[in-house]
């Protein structure tokens, strides 16, 4: 098999917070092959965005710190070579964000922003060489050509009256139109690799449906590769060839779309999928507990305090390795071993993993509640009355 287009190996990212050192990303391996769309799914705070920020060299450092691992693009290592990372990002990567309102400037018109992207390709710190290339090279078009290219892209994204839209401000557009403008801007630099971080999350289902369709069309038409980040597994089904399930900064499981969504093996994947109300059924068990505190993550499998199949003395020891019961379907869980084939593994999953029913969830107070800031959690610790502390298991 040829080299993947993008490859992350053994990535570790920490954050220095008031509460101490947060070991967020803990040994993530991930790759995107040429022409492939890969999704990362997981609940809020599991590290999806930090992974995307690392790839796009947008991780705030400090407080973030990449403490280990490699990021290769077409074989070239980028984490240890910031200039190369910048170059590759400018030449080959495009990014679509979640919230157009915060990622689009309020004071510039769509046309002005698109012209800026075309001129500098989004960089404020471009080197002379890049700038020269950008002015003279394929992106170095004059005003009229830039306008034409912008219009063409807006048109491809089925934005009515693209010429008029160029002179409008983002606030004057609907949510769906703004998200289309963002996609158009990500495509302006003619990237070959796109990263999308929850781009349809704030949208209505009918608008989301149209956007996924459009994005799919652009990807197919240009033969792009994409890493699509979402907490919505239904959206992952629509867009992805393969899916990575992430939990607490680690990859729990990876496989094809159908493997992950129809025959999941990891207890977390199963709990997550079962928790989603579906047209067929809805299991109300949910998953006990909360995401762990990243300053003191659980030993061994980070999911073990919440896992109904956890084995004492095993799961709380070493971090589980990735077992591969079927080619490309990997699961980080001690329920499996190297001897099992896909059929064996599925049987284990179906017999060994059972989430507890009942409406009880977990009384603990986590000091790492997803997206809050370090300042907020510091605040909170101060005000703590006697706490029940971090208890394991579900029912009191």
């Amino acid at each position, binding site marked *: 098999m040829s080299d993947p287009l993008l490859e992350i190996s053994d990535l570790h990212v920490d954050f220095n917070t008031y509460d101490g050192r947060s070991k967020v990303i803990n040994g993530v391996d991930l790759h995107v092959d040429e022409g492939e769309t890969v999704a990362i799914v997981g609940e809020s705070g599991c590290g999806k965005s930090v992974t995307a920020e690392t790839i796009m060299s947008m991780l705030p450092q400090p407080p973030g710190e990449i403490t280990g691992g490699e990021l290769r693009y077409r074989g070239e290592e980028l984490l240890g070579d910031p200039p190369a990372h910048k170059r590759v990002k400018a030449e080959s990567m495009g990014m679509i964000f979640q919230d157009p309102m915060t990622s689009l400037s309020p004071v510039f018109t769509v046309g002005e922003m698109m012209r800026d992207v075309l001129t500098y390709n989004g960089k404020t710190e471009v080197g002379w060489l890049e700038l020269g290339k950008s002015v003279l090279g394929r992106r170095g078009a004059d005003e009229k050509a830039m306008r034409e290219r912008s219009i063409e892209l807006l048109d491809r994204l089925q934005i009515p009256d693209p010429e008029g839209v160029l002179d409008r401000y983002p606030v004057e557009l609907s949510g769906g139109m703004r998200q289309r403008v963002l996609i158009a801007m990500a495509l302006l630099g003619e990237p070959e690799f796109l990263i999308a971080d929850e781009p349809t999350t704030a949208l209505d289902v009918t608008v989301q449906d149209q956007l996924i369709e459009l994005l799919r069309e652009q990807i197919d038409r240009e033969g792009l590769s994409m890493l699509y980040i979402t907490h919505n597994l*239904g*959206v992952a089904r629509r867009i992805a060839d393969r899916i990575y399930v992430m939990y607490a900064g680690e990859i729990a499981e990876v496989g094809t779309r159908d493997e992950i969504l129809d025959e999941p093996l990891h207890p977390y994947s199963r709990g997550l999928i079962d928790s989603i109300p579906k047209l*067929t*059924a*809805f299991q109300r068990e949910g998953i006990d507990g909360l995401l762990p505190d990243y300053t003191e993550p659980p030993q061994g499998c980070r999911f073990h305090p919440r896992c109904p199949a956890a084995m004492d003395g095993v799961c709380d020891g070493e971090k589980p390795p990735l077992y591969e019961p079927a080619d490309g379907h990997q699961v980080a869980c001690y329920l499996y071993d190297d001897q099992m084939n896909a059929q064996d593994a599925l049987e284990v999953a179906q017999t060994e993993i059972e989430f507890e029913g009942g409406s009880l969830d977990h009384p603990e107070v986590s000091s790492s509640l997803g997206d809050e800031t370090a300042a907020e959690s510091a605040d909170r610790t101060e005000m703590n009355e006697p706490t029940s502390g971090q208890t394991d298991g579900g029912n009191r």
Partner: protein
Amino acid sequence: MRTQDTDTSSASTASSGETVTNDTASDPHLEEDPVLKVRDLKKYYPITGGLFKTKVGEVKAVDGVSFDVRRGETYAIVGESGCGKTTLGKTIARLHAPTSGTVEFDGTDISSLGERELKPIRREIQVVYQDPTSSLNPRKRIKDIVAEPLIVHDIGSKAERSERVKSLLKRVDLPVDFLYRYPNELSGGQKQRVAIARALTLNPTLLVLDEPTSALDVSVQAKVIALLEELQRDLNLSYLLITHDLSLTKNIADRIGVMYLGKFMERANAAELFRSPQNPYTEQLLSAIPIVEQSEAELKPEKIQIRGETPDPSDPPSGCSFHPRCHRAIDACSSDEPSLVDVGADHDSRCLLHGDGDDSSDT
């Protein structure tokens, strides 16, 4: 709420503790003794402009909505952002006065009551909002947040209040030592449990649940939904559930109203709505559901090419307000306004394609 997904042909899904007639010929609106009876409810917001803030137009956020909520059932209002579902919930809870129409709660028309007459009603209808972070006062401890309705209504001694609050925390599966914590010490799911506890403080009859789990991760949502169902069974609560999640309503609602630009496009028993949607807008909503498991595919309509977004509600399209986005529109749709017509037992839809059918009695 239903504990199971029933996909039978029975027209009504009896909820726990209540017998609901299964007579397919009966008009749902002749239902005896509904807990809530909403008739032709309208809520218009003025749009003001200019130096003197004079009225220059209006948004018909709720524009003639009628339905009943039976005792112990979950009635879901579904629709996309801006369709008026939150306004509908707030108007029913009398958080603001309706422009016209009636809201009968337990036989009393509350639509034009003044604040003093409303006070006893407020104990009966409580609202739980989407975002517990903004609905809970960050400077108050959980015990004071949950006790607040008791204080407002001047109920009980201090000791009694404190007992009540403790039992409420238990009721929503929170440990007693949460009494002394502040909202920001709790996770999203825990905060939503506090919001539910507060809503239960005065023993209400009807809860308006406005996207109660939309801000939560699914593994937490599942447990909060299970809790709401358990409370409904145990306390015989009626729920008006406002949500954009159709898959959720399929699993927990008894009946559903599909709203678009202030009006119901379709109203039906939940199982029936999913089995045989009659309105083109409902078809689009169902077809856009991003399914998770392959097995769900056969339970939704064929893929429909969807276009456009909800238009500006202050300037709705002529005729059928859905016509610019409708995949079935005919010429007449841009000029003629359809009304809700009977398309089956406990099932109405608003679409010109249904022909002249019987106008639904109440619209």
